[in-house]
């Protein structure tokens, strides 16, 4: 009973980050599109300043969201230590690839349009997988 508000907060946090991801995904789909050609077309003539205006707040928010998510994961006893250690490496590497790719695209490295798309999709699936690991424990305790 004492832990119920904490479980509520964990679920609220996951719902909010999921909602924010859906909003961001919709915005990306409507303004850029989920294919390498349109990503290349959108980013290849952007200025560094223009890219920084988007990348800086995203890096900050996603880092805080990952910190909170991974810290919930670290308190989940049913998850192995191996997964708890691997998850931060996986998620932060994908985040760096996703956010950093736009600078490479703007510098003329077209391959990074594919890397951006792949790292974004892998990042979303990996984050979803981490949430499922946290949810399993939380939902069992709520029941």
């Amino acid at each position: 009973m004492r832990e119920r508000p904490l479980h509520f907060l964990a679920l609220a946090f996951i719902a909010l980050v999921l909602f924010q991801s859906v909003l961001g995904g919709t915005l990306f789909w409507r303004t850029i599109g989920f294919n390498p050609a349109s990503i290349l077309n959108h980013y290849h003539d952007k200025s560094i300043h223009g890219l920084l205006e988007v990348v800086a707040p995203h890096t900050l928010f996603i880092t805080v969201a990952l910190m909170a998510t991974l810290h919930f994961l670290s308190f989940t006893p049913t998850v192995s230590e191996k997964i708890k250690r691997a998850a931060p490496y996986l998620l932060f590497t994908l985040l760096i690839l996703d956010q950093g790719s736009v600078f490479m695209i703007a510098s003329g490295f077209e391959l990074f349009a594919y890397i951006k798309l792949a790292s974004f999709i892998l990042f979303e699936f990996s984050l979803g997988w981490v949430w499922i690991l946290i949810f399993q424990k939380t939902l069992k305790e709520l029941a």
Partner: protein
Amino acid sequence: MKFIASQKLSNNSSLRLVMLWMLIGLIAAMGLNLIAKSIDYGTSPQAWNSVILGNPDEFQEPMSFNDLLLTIHTDLFSLVLIYILIASLYLRTSRSSTFKIVFLGISLAGLILYPLMLLTAQWIGPIAVSVAGGSFILFHAVMLLGGSELMIALLRRRL
């Protein structure tokens, strides 16, 4: 967050001070957020309606869906962080579990209804814009009250 929620802050003066200044910063940010929104959208439901849905009498165009998405996406960056930080600290208070869940639930409802109503306003109509504005104020009011209660509790070493 569980780290903040599981530490006895009254026994740790440096962490207590950090939390106190964090609350001052968050309360100031919420005040500035309310002022900024009142400048951008106005202070009445009619003014919000004119900005979001447009006003033919004043030749004002409605906000495009992409601009609305961008505004909401940007707003949520800060609002989610404010919610998580204040809520995680609020778990430390001596309030009952039911009260804490009601507190978290009301503020979460405000935080979710604000963007949802804005996004659906062009189909639902002016009532959705009014609900969005009300939800935005509700969220800030509950968070400001919660933040102030936490500050008092920290100053009295009750957290």
